[in-house]
């Protein structure tokens, strides 16, 4: 792919980086990243990936923009209230960078649609807000052998890990099944610092860019945790689990299923 003069100017701060250059920028323009969830994590991830010139960005979400989203879901503006999140997100990404093709999926990720969707992409960002979806993405990416970034945020804490399915520690290596429904506080019950979504979602976007470019060291086999109050990052090394029900020595999960777990009250008040 030859860059146009305008692209050389737009991406000049990437292109002067030794690890990226014109070749790397062309790789980004040729890459496809899927973001599942146009919410707190998906917002900064989508904005930065669009700005970076990731050529195709897919975004899945069935929800509409709600007033309580605006405190942290920075891809949505006040004028977007009640608009489909995927449409709101697409408008901002296209406004930042006309080089980017945004594909929208106005649906919830489920066992019967997710594999087909992720198959077209190079890398997946899990920006979902519930455990059934997080387990579904982990399992679907395993069956499709698709690299992805998992993350979660709550109150003042966030954590993330990059997973190369079948090669590095997966979500089920750490957590076998979703927690009991009544045990899980949601952000609506427990609260979440808005800017935390920006920190963690931006780290997920960083991993996507590194993966596409093949540079640096991915956050594999390491859970990175962050606490905004103490400003401490911790790297927790996590080995693959031979007893993992998905990617272990004797897997129990052999096909994709939805987790039947009403993790918390996902309906708005």
């Amino acid at each position, binding site marked *: 792919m030859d860059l146009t003069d305008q692209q050389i100017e737009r991406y000049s701060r990437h292109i002067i980086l030794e690890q990226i250059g014109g070749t790397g920028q062309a790789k980004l323009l040729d890459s496809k990243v899927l973001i599942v969830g146009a919410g707190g994590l998906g917002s900064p991830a989508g904005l930065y990936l669009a700005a970076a010139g990731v050529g195709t960005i897919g975004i899945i*979400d069935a929800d509409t923009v709600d007033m309580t989203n605006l405190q942290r879901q920075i891809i949505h503006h006040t004028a977007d209230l009640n608009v489909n999140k995927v449409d709101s997100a697409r408008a901002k990404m296209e406004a930042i960078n006309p080089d980017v093709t945004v594909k929208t999926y106005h649906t919830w990720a489920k066992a019967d649609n997710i594999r087909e969707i992720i198959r077209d992409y190079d890398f997946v960002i899990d920006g979902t807000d519930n455990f059934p979806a997080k387990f579904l993405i982990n399992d679907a990416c395993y069956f499709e052998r698709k690299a992805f970034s998992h993350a979660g945020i709550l109150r003042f*804490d966030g954590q993330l890990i990059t997973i190369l399915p079948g090669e590095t520690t997966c979500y089920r290596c750490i957590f076998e099944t979703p927690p009991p429904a009544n*045990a899980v506080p949601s952000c609506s019950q427990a609260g979440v610092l808005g800017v935390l979504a920006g920190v963690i979602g931006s780290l997920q976007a960083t991993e996507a860019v590194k993966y596409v470019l093949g540079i640096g060291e991915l956050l594999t086999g390491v859970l990175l945790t962050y606490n905004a109050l103490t400003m401490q990052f911790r790297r927790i090394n996590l080995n693959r689990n031979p007893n993992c029900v998905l990617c272990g020595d004797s897997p129990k999960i052999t096909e994709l299923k939805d987790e039947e777990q009403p993790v918390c009250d996902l309906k708005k008040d």
Partner: protein
Amino acid sequence: MKLVVNGSEVETKDGLTVSELLVEQNVKMPEMVSVEVDGQIVPREDFDATALKDGGKVEFLYFMGGGGGLN
């Protein structure tokens, strides 16, 4: 004996089990925690039977579900 729990040194009685450590560390919802001891995830059903050893490195790993739209 000494353990390193989530990066901090903790003094405990000898032979403490994972279940006992969860209580001692005031983990209110153990069902929300996976436990890694010296690099290996301990199966939940083994929490009671797994005794910790001096110098052991323990990580409590918490479920964290937020990040998207609704919650």
